[in-house]
């Protein structure tokens, strides 16, 4: 028979004042979950391409619609943010960037960088003639 061991509990999240790194930790996880289900889009697109012109046209009708564009824009941001936020984690894994100022700077860089890269990619995509 196992008896319950009374271990000290750490205070729950609500106890703490919200900080940027805390919020972005959740965003990292949320973007990860979004990308997880987003792989369905990638698979759908590749399968449609392999299946033939009619199927591919269906995908293109979706990606060309405003809702499709919105989903893809969100997908791009989730990917870019998760990438930069992940690089921030690699820096921490290597033992750097733990000082308060560094922590904040890295987190802002991931946040701003993610949005900037997303906009940049879409500008390039449109300038290359998406609607060609």
């Amino acid at each position, binding site marked *: 028979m196992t008896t319950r061991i009374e271990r000290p509990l750490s205070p729950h999240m609500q106890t703490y004042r919200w900080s940027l790194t805390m919020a972005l930790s959740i965003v990292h996880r949320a973007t990860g979950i979004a990308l997880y289900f987003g792989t369905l889009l990638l698979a759908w697109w*590749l399968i449609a391409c392999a299946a033939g*012109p009619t199927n591919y046209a269906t995908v293109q009708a979706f990606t060309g619609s405003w809702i499709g564009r919105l989903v893809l824009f969100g997908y791009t941001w989730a990917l870019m943010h998760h990438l930069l936020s*992940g690089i921030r984690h690699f820096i921490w894994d290597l033992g750097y960037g733990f000082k308060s100022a560094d922590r904040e700077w890295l987190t802002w860089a991931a946040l701003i960088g993610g949005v900037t890269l997303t906009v940049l990619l879409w500008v390039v995509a449109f300038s290359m003639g998406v609607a060609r």
Partner: protein
Amino acid sequence: MSIEESHGNAPRSANTMRTPMGKVRKLGAAHSGTSDFWRQRITGVAMTLLILPVIVVIMMLLGRNQAGAAQILGSPLISLIMILFIIASAVHMKIGMQVVIEDYVQNEKLKLVTIMANNFFSIAVALAAIFAIFKLASGV
């Protein structure tokens, strides 16, 4: 530093004969140690390196019809880049989702089912995508 200090000298429970080393060799509750942690880093670095080529491939495909897209995706180098990226993604997302499940799903049976579903989903999506690329590359 003495051997006790470096290897930890926490008092052992009186009713166990297991040594700290014996516990370590079992590699924790999952019996796989830190392999998932390490694999998550390997796949993360792989995708960081592959993201630029993948973006270039996607930019090349924008606005093309099926015939054009199929020709590009079916070329050997591009197929390889896409397959590598899909394999890294599948492993990375399977581990990531398992961590999320283990954090939030309290019910043991539901946890077992969701972890299994996570494995099925990750493998199925990856294989479907890789199969499509193989088909395009072989030109059938």
